[in-house]
């Protein structure tokens, strides 16, 4: 039977603040176990939390970028539960007054996935099981997180993936998190149920915890939808439970429950005063937000006239877009700059991470200087590409590779005499061309390119050569 997927995603994102949410410890990833700790983040008796204002600011940024309403009055709550990685036996989180509410993410199709809420909270430590012992590393304890809860508006595996991807891109764009799913700085829990098309009621849902890659989200949704459909087709009922996705077998299986029924006994944390955020501050943060990738994409297509595919590649990563726009500001042409980035620079970058980082040795100004030579037809595109490659490898400017004297265009007369020289010097090749071995003309191209240091216009040269050879 056909079922409709009803899916919502809860995403935890580690904020890239320098210090933890309630103390001055570093948030740096890694480090020897328990070296990024203090009395506060290890819950020592008598210690008290101080809310890091940067965390509030970053969460508001996230809220604004996801079209949320910002609650100007908010407070922190304690979520009480016992687990060895949670040093105070409660997590400081937000329950009934989240910082941001009622936003959305727009998919390429134009469909909007609602954002129910965004709240701030602290991360827990990490259990390490080794040689039959369990060790606890509290370095991560107190690292700031935001939890972004979507409405159950997602109705396919593709939409689930696109939602998570758009969310990841946006968070990276506004610079509040690196959102590395493998390192755990972005973690997704997927809630999913099925219902018959047109049924206004929701079916029983399951929650798939801690999915750590975008493609696994898509696969997990498909696998879980299939699993639930099989149960329903067989006349069974889905059990509400927490599941785990196993990427090696591509299956979804129930997790062992930590506790039977959790009652977190939420209540306002008396150690942290209720806080007010003034409208002015919100507007200040709104004004500081960069143009988001989807707005950029539309602008690149509509105003810059770039093809959709190229515009997408350029707008996808903030550093790429900044580099591109920087070059334009230095006077580079849209078309050449775009093609050289997508064609030459990206060919050096194998992974999405590399594009995201965009760690290149040249500045937008250096790049623009090269593009402008091509724009003015002082060098051809082939030379531009090879020179750019050399610049990328060395970090040196275009002048290092193309001397002023090289830039003077080769006159038609010069080219003609060079062609004659080439013909005289290669009688065999000329004969071959005449006898139909057309490829032999490359020998003369090579001669001309060598003589001109590669700056001759190859199409003009071909036309001249064919004329002289008499074809």
């Amino acid at each position, binding site marked *: 039977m056909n079922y409709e997927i009803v899916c919502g995603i809860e995403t935890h994102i580690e904020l890239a603040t320098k210090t933890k949410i309630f103390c001055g410890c570093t948030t740096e990833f890694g480090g020897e176990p328990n070296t990024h700790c203090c*009395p506060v983040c*290890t*819950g*020592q*008796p*008598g*210690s*008290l*939390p*101080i*809310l890091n204002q940067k965390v509030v600011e970053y969460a508001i940024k996230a809220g604004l970028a996801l079209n949320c309403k910002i609650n100007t009055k908010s407070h922190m709550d*304690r979520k*009480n539960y*016992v687990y*060895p990685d949670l*040093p*105070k*036996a*409660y997590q400081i989180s937000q329950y009934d007054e989240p910082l941001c509410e009622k936003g959305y993410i727009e998919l390429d199709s134009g469909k909007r996935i609602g954002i129910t809420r965004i709240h701030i909270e602290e991360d827990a430590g990490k259990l390490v099981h080794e040689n039959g012992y*369990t060790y*606890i590393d509290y370095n991560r304890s107190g690292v700031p997180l935001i939890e972004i809860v979507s409405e159950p508006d997602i109705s396919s595996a593709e939409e689930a993936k696109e939602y998570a991807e758009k969310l990841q891109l946006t968070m990276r764009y506004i610079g509040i998190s690196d959102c590395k799913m493998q390192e755990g700085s972005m973690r997704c829990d997927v809630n999913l149920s099925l219902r018959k098309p047109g049924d206004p009621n929701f079916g029983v849902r399951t929650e798939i915890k801690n999915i750590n890659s975008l493609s696994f989200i898509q696969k997990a949704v498909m696998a879980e939808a299939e699993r639930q459909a099989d149960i329903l087709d067989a006349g069974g009922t889905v059990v509400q439970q927490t599941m785990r996705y196993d990427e090696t077998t591509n299956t979804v299986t129930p997790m062992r429950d930590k506790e039977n029924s959790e*009652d977190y*006994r*939420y*209540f306002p944390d*008396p*150690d*942290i*005063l209720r806080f007010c955020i003034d409208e002015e501050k919100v507007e200040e943060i709104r004004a500081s937000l960069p143009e988001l990738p989807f707005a950029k994409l539309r602008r690149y297509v509509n105003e810059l006239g770039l093809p959709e595919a190229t515009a997408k590649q350029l707008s996808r990563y903030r550093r790429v877009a900044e580099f591109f726009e920087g070059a334009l500001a230095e006077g580079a042409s849209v078309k050449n700059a775009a093609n050289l980035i997508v064609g030459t620079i990206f060919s050096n970058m194998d992974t999405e991470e590399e594009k995201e980082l965009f760690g290149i040795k040249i500045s937008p100004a250096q790049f623009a200087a090269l593009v402008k030579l091509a724009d003015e037809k002082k060098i051809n595109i082939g030379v531009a590409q090879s020179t750019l490659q050399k610049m990328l490898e060395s970090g040196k400017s275009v002048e290092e590779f193309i001397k002023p004297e090289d830039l003077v265009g080769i006159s038609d007369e010069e080219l003609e005499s060079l062609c004659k020289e080439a013909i005289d010097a290669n009688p065999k090749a000329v004969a071959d061309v005449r006898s139909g071995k057309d490829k032999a003309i490359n020998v003369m191209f090579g001669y001309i390119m060598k003589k001109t240091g590669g700056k001759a216009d190859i199409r003009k040269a071909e036309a001249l050569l064919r004329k002289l050879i008499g074809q």
Partner: protein
Amino acid sequence: MRAGIAELAEKLRNREISAVELTKVYIKAIEELNPTLNAYVHLTFDTALKAAEQADQMLKEGDAPPLCGIPMALKDNICTDGLPTTCCSKILKGFKPYYDATVWEKLKKQGAVLLGKTNMDEFAMGSTSETSCYGAPLNPRNTDYVTGGSSGGSAAAVCANLAVYSLGSDTGGSIRQPASFCGVVGLKPTYGAVSRYGLIAYGSSLDQIGPLTNSVKDAAIVFDAIKGGDKRDQTSVDYDYGAPLAECLDRDVKGMRIGVAEEFFDGINPEIKSKIEEALNLFEKNGAKIENIRFPALKIALPVYYIIACAEASSNLGRYDGIRYGYRTSSYTSIDDMIVKTRSEGFGDEVKRRIMLGTYVLSSGYYDAYYKKACLIREEINREFDAVFEKCDVLVAPTAPNTAFPLNYRGASPVEMYLSDICTVPVNIAGVPAISIPCGADAKGLPIGMQIIGKRFDEATVLQAAHFYEQCAGEVIGAYEGGARV
């Protein structure tokens, strides 16, 4: 009267006595009396003598702060770097924090000499200090009686001259009630006036550190030294008190409006009632205006207090699981088993009772009926205090409905013991300041305490009224004869 902090400071500055000599006098007194009184549970004589030497150095260099070289004591729930801090609980036995509470950091900078950590009810939960895992301290006035609690050891140490002053903590009366039982002065400052950083939490929205002393002036001097905002405690306030309060005590009570609410006198021991009335007469005779006011929310304050304090405690005490510090059970089969056994063995009955109460009132299904309702009534109590302080400058009430209980006194139920907090808890709920000062003794010679309650951050008026009474009434109860003599 015995020497106060100012007199001792004068002697130290004049080199009539050195800080080391003074400390040794107190050490000797502690060695003599503490085995009986059990006021101290951890003695820190080695560090005390070193601190005294440093204090002497500071004194020699001149311009030493007021508390330099003065021997004192801290309640065992105030964190002291490298020294035991156990809340008198088995679950924290052997615990030595690696950080100082802000109050101790401030006093240390002044050159204070810490003699030791004082006995208390386990995690400050109790009214007699008998829930201490080290056994109860005894009331120096009569060792058949309790000191009160939870800062019982701090009150006993000051009463018996085993410390010039001490710090306690007050969540529902834990400074004022033992001060009243032992016949000393105890000040609970405004919530937020003194940093709570390093005070091991019981009820976080109610807890406040304050001094126990032998005079109002001493209380003012110590309060001056420990007050102030702290960037490590978001609930602390950097309130501008102007000049040091100890320098602004001399004021008569002419025109002072003193509120008296009959609800505070319901069910109060008649001897206590008559002593308070005598005090009120003294105030009136000196020009104060007595305003009879109503405080209908008083009765409901007690359940509100126990709901909020226990709710917060149930969360605050969740961290004692045997994993990172303190006591850990000796045999277990899993992490869950270890946590359950550690807590079952490590906590005493009263603490367990309050954790269970607090867990219950926060549970889903009961939250609205208990915790949420208590928070709403808390706001109502705040409004009643606001209304009272529109008509009055201070409120006078008994500190406790009774004088010290006999040791091992067991009422009909724990609730009966909770009822003895009736006069003190409204003050914590509203976060206002209050002082308890001796105003006489009952027929058995046990001290009676009078409570003076003020507006938020108006410790000045509270201290002035108390100081005036103290000066006017003279010796209302004889000074304790033993202990350190200088």
